């Protein structure tokens, strides 16, 4: 069974479109994250939810909007896509109370043309 899954795996779209990426974890974790990994492999935290509450909201354009319908799911919606949004987006999860270990999904490679 896949612990942290993301869909789609690849996403190719044009500038100006709106797209969503979905993430699900079956680990029973209470905290989920979205990361962006750019072409230089630099990893940047974007958002984190704990039990459906937004707890980390980094400096990210407001075109990016996360949504957590329940603690097992965290989605990322991106409006008005730009070329610079092209990257690999990773979802991750971790468990309370003191565990900082994060478990990552396989990533969604977004290409904006």
């Amino acid at each position, binding site marked *: 069974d896949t612990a*942290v899954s993301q869909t789609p795996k690849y996403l190719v779209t044009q500038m100006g479109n709106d797209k969503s990426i979905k993430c699900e974890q079956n680990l029973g974790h209470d*905290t989920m994250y979205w990361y962006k990994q750019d072409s230089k*492999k*630099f*990893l940047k*935290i974007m958002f*984190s939810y*704990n039990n459906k509450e937004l*707890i*980390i909201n980094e400096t990210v354009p407001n075109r990016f909007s996360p949504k957590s319908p329940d603690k097992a799911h965290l989605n990322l919606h991106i409006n008005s896509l730009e070329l610079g949004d092209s990257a690999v987006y*990773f979802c*991750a999860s*971790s468990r309370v109370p*003191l*565990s*900082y*270990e*994060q*478990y*990552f*999904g*396989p*990533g969604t490679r977004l290409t904006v043309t």
Partner: protein
Amino acid sequence: AQSVAQPEDQVNVAEGNPLTVKCTYSVSGNPYLFWYVQYPNRGLQFLLKYITGDNLVKGSYGFEAEFNKSQTSFHLKKPSALVSDSALYFCAVRDIEAGNNRKLIWGLGTSLAVNP
């Protein structure tokens, strides 16, 4: 300011030789330190962590790391490298200033190439 540094962008080692991937950190308080590995076109995988206790931490795939408080380092090591160890390695430290938000500060990654 809190930070993590991986001073080498790339490390090359021959198969069978010992490998070291370096990490230094700067945080206030007690550091929680982590190593992750990313194989090509894959997500990151947790390798090992140091929270407290023995300075030598053993992890997955035969890797270990040594916490050195005086040198503020947490270098990743393996006694005998395999070609399959070739990957991107990330060091991370708990962001203490983020409180209970369980945020990690990530290094920029070190690409390890093990040559047959």
